[in-house]
C-alpha cells in the first residue's frame, strides 16, 4: 500500500491504482493481445478458402479440398488457443483487480477509522457505504476488463491498419473514415464537458437515493405512525423521481451519438464494398484485387469488435473516474495526526487547560467549548452537569481524541492526548456511551471487545457485575446468542448493560460514563451502581448525568453552561452558592416529583 493519494485524477489516477499490481497486469495485457490475434485465425482461414474458391471460379486452378479442410481446422485450433489465452489473461487481470479492490477497501476502512467523528456527521452512513461498495467495485471494470482491452485493441488496430494500408489504400480509407466519424459523434456525447457534469449529477442523484432510503428504512416506526407513504415522504420520492428524470434526459442526449456510432461501426463492410466494387469494375480480371477485397470484407467485423469495446471504455471511464474521485475525497480527509514520538501518561489525572473547541472551526461554526480548564484527579469522581448543549458530552469525547481541539490542551497524566499513541490512549480510557452500540455478533464476543485477552470467567464475572447474567441466561443460546441481523434484539436497557459489562471487563484506569444507566430500570441501576462502585476505586472517573441525585456524592461537580464552566464544587458547596447548580437541583427535585396526571396540565 505504498501509493499515496496524490493530485492525480481521471485515467492517470486509475493507472496509478492499477500500478499496484503491475506485473500481473502486464502479463494480462500480453496474454490478451496474443488472444485477440489468435481469435483472428478463423477469419483468416475463411479468407484462404474464399481465395481458393475465387481461383477455382476463374478457372485458374483446380479446387484443393484437402488444403481447405486443413485451413478450416487450423482456424478452429487458433480459435481455441485464442480463448485459452483469453482465460489466462482474464484471470491475471481479475486477480489483480480484486486484490486492488481489497486493498482500497481496507485502506478506506483504515482511513475513516482515523478521521475525527465530525466526518460521520457530515456524511451519511448510506453514502459512505455506497462509496466503499459500489464506487470501489466499478474500478474492477477498468482494471480487469478495460485495461487489457485497451492494450490489445490498440495493438491489434495498429497491426491491422498497417496491414490494410499495405494491401490497399482506398479500401483502408473506406473503412477508417466511418470509424473516425463514429468516434467523433460518440466523443462529443460521452467525453465532453457536458458529459462530465452529467456524470457528477448522476452520482449525486444516486447518493441521494442511497441516504434517503436508509432514512426511510431506519425511521420506519415514525413513517408508520405518521401515516407517511413513499409518495408523501417527500425527500425519498423526490430523489427517486429526480434520478429517473436525470437518467432519461441523459439517455435522450446520448442517443443520436451512440446510435450513429454503433451503426457506422457494425457496418464497416458496407462502406468497403462499394469502393471495392468501383475499383474492381475498372479491371474485373484483376483477381489479386478481388482477393484483397474479400480479405477486407471478411476482417471488417474483426476490427469493429475491439473498437466498440474501446468506446464503451470511454463511456464507463467517466463513471469510474467520478467514483474514484469520491473515493479519493474520502481518503484525503485529513486524519487525526498520529504522534511520532509517543509519550505515555504518567499517572491518570485528567487536565483540561484553556480548551476551546468548535465542531466546524473552518466553517466559522460556533464554539462549543470556550476556555474550559479543570482537573479531574485520580481516585475521584468528577461529574459534568449542565443543560443540554452545554458541552458535557463534547468534553467526554475530547478525552479519547474523537476530535482535535483548536486551542488549549487536554492531558492525561501530564501527557497531551495528542502525544499519546492511539493504542495507549484507548487502553487508558474506557467509555460507556449514552447510545449503546452492539456488534452483530454473540453476546460473549460483544463483551469480549472490552478485553480480547480475557478468560471465560472474566467475561462471566463482568456480565454478572453489570446485571446481565439473568437476561443472558434466558436467551436461547445464552452467551452465544447472536445479536442483531439474524439473531435476537435486546431492549435498550439490556443493550446498555452489555456495554457496561464491556467497560467492566476492560477495566481501564480512566472511566467515562456518559449517561450510562439512562435506559436501565431503577432496580438494575441501583445494582449496577453497587457493582461499579468497586470497579471505580482508584480510577479517574468522569460521569455525565442528567439526574443530579446520582452524582450527589461526586468529589467534584463541574457545572457547564454554553460551553463554559459556570461553577465548580461539591454538592453541598454548590447548593450553598445558590447559582445555576442550585437552580438545576431544584428543577430536578420538582421534575422527579413529577407525576403524570391528566388534570395537572390543565
Amino acid at each position, binding site marked *: 500500500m505504498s501509493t499515496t493519494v496524490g493530485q492525480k485524477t481521471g485515467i492517470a489516477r486509475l493507472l496509478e491504482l492499477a500500478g499496484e499490481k503491475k506485473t500481473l497486469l502486464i502479463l494480462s495485457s500480453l496474454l490478451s493481445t496474443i488472444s485477440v490475434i489468435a481469435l483472428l485465425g478463423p477469419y483468416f482461414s475463411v479468407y484462404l478458402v474464399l481465395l481458393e474458391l475465387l481461383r477455382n471460379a476463374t478457372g485458374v486452378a483446380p479446387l484443393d479440398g484437402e488444403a481447405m479442410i486443413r485451413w478450416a481446422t487450423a482456424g478452429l485450433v487458433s480459435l481455441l488457443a485464442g480463448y485459452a489465452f483469453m482465460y489466462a489473461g482474464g484471470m491475471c487481470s481479475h486477480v489483480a483487480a480484486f486484490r486492488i479492490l481489497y486493498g482500497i477497501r481496507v485502506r478506506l476502512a483504515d482511513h475513516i477509522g482515523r478521521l475525527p467523528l465530525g466526518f460521520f456527521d457530515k456524511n451519511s452512513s448510506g453514502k459512505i457505504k455506497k462509496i466503499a461498495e459500489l464506487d470501489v467495485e466499478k474500478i474492477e471494470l477498468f482494471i480487469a476488463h478495460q485495461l487489457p482491452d485497451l492494450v490489445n485493441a490498440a495493438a491489434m488496430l495498429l497491426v491491422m491498419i498497417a496491414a490494410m494500408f499495405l494491401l490497399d489504400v482506398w479500401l483502408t480509407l473506406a473503412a477508417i473514415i466511418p470509424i473516425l466519424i463514429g468516434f467523433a459523434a460518440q466523443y462529443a456525447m460521452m467525453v465532453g464537458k457536458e458529459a462530465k457534469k452529467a456524470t457528477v449529477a448522476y452520482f449525486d442523484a444516486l447518493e441521494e437515493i442511497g441516504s434517503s432510503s436508509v432514512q426511510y428504512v431506519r425511521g420506519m416506526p415514525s413513517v*408508520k405512525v405518521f401515516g407517511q407513504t413513499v409518495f408523501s415522504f417527500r425527500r425519498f420520492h423526490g430523489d427517486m423521481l429526480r434520478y429517473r428524470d436525470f437518467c432519461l434526459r441523459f439517455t435522450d442526449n446520448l442517443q443520436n451519438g451512440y446510435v450513429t456510432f454503433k451503426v457506422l461501426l457494425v457496418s464497416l463492410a*458496407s462502406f468497403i464494398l462499394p469502393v471495392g466494387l468501383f475499383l474492381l469494375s475498372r479491371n474485373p480480371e484483376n483477381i489479386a484485387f478481388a482477393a484483397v477485397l474479400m480479405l477486407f470484407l471478411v476482417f471488417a467485423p474483426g476490427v469493429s469488435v475491439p473498437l466498440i469495446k474501446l468506446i464503451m471504455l470511454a463511456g464507463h471511464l467517466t463513471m469510474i473516474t467520478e467514483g474514484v474521485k469520491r473515493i479519493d475525497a474520502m481518503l484525503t480527509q485529513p486524519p487525526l495526526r498520529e504522534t511520532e514520538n509517543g509519550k505515555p501518561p504518567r499517572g491518570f489525572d485528567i487536565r483540561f487547560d484553556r480548551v476551546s473547541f468548535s465542531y466546524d472551526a473552518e466553517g466559522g461554526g460556533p464554539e462549543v467549548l470556550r476556555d474550559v480548564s479543570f482537573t479531574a484527579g485520580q481516585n475521584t469522581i468528577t461529574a459534568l452537569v449542565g443543560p443540554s448543549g452545554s458541552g458535557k458530552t463534547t468534553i467526554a469525547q475530547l478525552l479519547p481524541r474523537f476530535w482535535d481541539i483548536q486551542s488549549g490542551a487536554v492531558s492525561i497524566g501530564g501527557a497531551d492526548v495528542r502525544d499519546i499513541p492511539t493504542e495507549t490512549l484507548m*487502553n487508558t480510557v474506557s467509555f460507556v456511551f449514552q447510545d449503546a452500540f452492539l456488534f452483530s455478533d454473540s453476546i460473549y464476543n460483544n463483551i469480549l471487545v472490552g478485553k480480547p485477552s480475557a478468560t471465560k470467567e472474566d467475561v462471566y464475572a463482568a456480565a454478572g457485575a453489570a446485571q446481565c447474567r439473568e437476561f443472558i441466561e434466558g436467551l436461547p443460546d445464552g452467551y452465544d446468542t447472536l445479536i442483531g441481523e439474524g439473531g435476537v434484539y435486546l431492549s435498550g436497557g439490556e443493550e446498555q448493560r452489555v456495554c457496561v459489562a464491556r467497560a467492566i471487563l476492560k477495566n481501564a484506569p480512566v472511566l467515562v460514563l456518559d449517561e450510562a444507566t439512562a435506559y436501565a430500570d431503577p432496580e438494575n441501576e441501583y445494582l449496577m451502581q453497587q457493582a461499579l462502585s468497586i470497579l471505580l476505586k482508584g480510577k479517574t472517573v468522569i460521569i455525565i448525568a442528567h439526574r443530579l441525585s446520582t452524582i450527589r456524592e461526586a468529589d467534584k461537580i463541574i457545572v457547564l453552561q454554553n460551553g463554559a464552566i459556570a461553577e465548580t464544587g461539591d454538592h453541598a458547596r454548590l447548593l450553598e452558592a445558590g447559582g445555576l447548580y442550585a437552580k438545576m437541583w431544584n428543577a430536578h427535585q420538582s421534575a422527579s416529583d413529577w407525576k403524570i396526571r391528566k388534570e395537572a396540565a390543565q
Partner: protein
Amino acid sequence: MTGKLYNISAGKPKSLIRPIVGALVADICNLFPGGFMALVISVLYGQYVSPGEAHDWKTLWILCGLMLLSLAALFVGERFAFRATHRRAYENSAVGRAALAEHLRKLPLGFLAGKDPGEIGNALMSDFTQLENAVSHVLGQLVSGVITPVLTFVCFLFIDWRMAVAMFVALPCSLLFLWLISSLERRMGKAYLKSRTDMTNRFGEYINGMEVIKSHHLQGANFGRLERAIHLYMKNSIKVEGAMGPFYLIAIAGVKSGLTWMTIAGVYLIVGGSLTVPVFALFLLVGTRVFDPVSAALMRWAEFKYIALSGERIMGIMDQPVMAGDGDAPEAHDIAFDKVSFGYGARPVLKDVSLSLRTGGLTAIVGPSGSGKSTVLRLIARFYDPQGGRVLFGGVDEREIDPEKLLKNISMVFQDVYLFQDTIGNNIRYGKQEATREEIEEAAKAACCHEFIAALPKGYDTMVGEGGSTLSGGEKQRVSIARAILKDAPVILLDEATASLDPENEADVQRAIGALIRGRTVVMVAHRLKTVVYADRIIVLDKGRIAEQGTHGELLAAGGLYARLWDLQQRAGGWTLGV
C-alpha cells in the same frame, strides 16, 4: 427464463415487451446490410464462374445501393431500440423503487427488525440499478443472440439446408452444456452475493459503531470482522470468475466452431459437386459474422443471471405478505388484549397477556427491563401481529383493521427519537401534512420547543442531520412531541419518553407531555414509578406476564412486585467510589 424475466422486471414482465420489441426491430434491420452484401459477393462469384459473359455491373450496383439504403433503416431501428430499452429501464426502476418502498411500509416491523437496514437499502438502491442495467444493456443483446441465428438459420435452410445445419450444429450443444453447469453457477453466485451483503453489513456496522470502535482501538486493520469480510468477498469474486470463466469460454468457442464445421461440410459438398461456388461464398461470408451476436449474448447471459438474483432479492421482499386487514377503525378507542402471546423470533416476550384499557384513561405499564413493556405498545400500534390471542381496538380485532387507518388514531412518542434529514418545520409537519405554519408553531409552543427553534439561525427552516444528529436528546424529544400534538390522535402511546433527558429538558418535556395527553387515552411505559403514581391503572409486567395491576395505593397495599420495586427506587442511588 420466464422466472428471470419476471424478477428482472421487478414483478412486471409486461413492462419488458416494449424493450424486447425494440431490440427485435433493430435485429431485423441489422440483417439487411449483411444480407445484401453477401448477395453482392455471391453474384460476383457467380460471374467469375461463367467467364464467357460480361459482368452484370447493374445488378451489383443495385444490390449495393440497397445495402446502403438499409443502413438508414438500421439507424432508425437502432434508435428506436435504444429509446425503448434505455428509457424503459429508468422508468421501470423508478416505479419499482416506489412500489418496493410502499410495500416495505406495509410489512410488519418485525420484518425490518430481522434485517440489516443495509440489506434493505441495497435492495432499494443497487439492486434496482442492476435491473436498469439489465433492461438497458443486457436484454437487447440477449434478444439479438436468439433472433439473429434463428432468422439466419431459417433463411439459409431454403438456400442449402445441409450447410445451414452444419453452421448451427454446435449451438445446441453449447446451450446444453451451459444448462448442465447452471446449478453449480447458481450455488457460486449465491455464495458470492452473500459475501457481498456481508461486506456491506460489516461496513455499516463499522461506520455506525465508530465511537465504540475507536474507544476500543478497533479501527482499520484491528477490526478483523470487516477485514475478513472484505477478504472473503475478494476470494469469492476471484473464485466465481475463475471457475465460471472456462465454462463460458468453452460454450462460446463451441458456437463459433460452427464456422469450421460449415467450411468442412462445404468443401465436401463442393468437391462432390452438389454445392456451387457462389452459394459457398455466401455462407462463408455470413458465417464470419452470424456468431458474434450469439457469443455476445452468451457472455451477457452470465451477467443476466447474476442480475436476476438482484431481482429475486427484490421480489423476495415484494412477496412478503403485507399486514392483513382493510376494515375502518371503529369509533371507540378502548384497547384490550385477549390472551396475547408474542415473541421476537425465538425469544418469547409476552405470554398469555390479557388486559383492557378504558377510553380516556391513563394506564401505566411498569416492570423490570425486558419484561415486555414496550412490546405492549408496539402491539397496540400494530407494528407486529401477535402469535397467539388477539389485540382489540374499539372491540375489533386489529388484524381486521387497515393498519394505516388504525394508526390515524394513534400517536406515539418513542424512547429513541428518529428525526428525518429535513427541516425542523417539516419534521413537525409529518404529524399533519396540510398543517399551516401557524399550526406548526402552535404545536411547537405547546411542546416547549418553539423557543430553541426560533433561536436557531434559520429557525424552522434549519436542517436536521440524519436521525436528528444535530439536536440534543431533549430537543429531539420535544420536536417529536410537537409532531404528535399536531397529529392530534385520540390514543397516545408514550415509550419512556423522558428516560434519557437532563433535568432542565426533562421538565420541559414533561410540560410538553402534559399538553399532549390532555383528554386522550394514554398508555405509557415508565421506569420511574414516581411518575405514574396518579395513573388510573398501573399494570406490572414481569417476564412477559402480568404480575399485578391496580392503582398505586392498591398495589402498595398488596405488597407484591410493585411494592418491592417502589421500595428499591425510594433508596437514593448514586455513583460512589467503593471503599
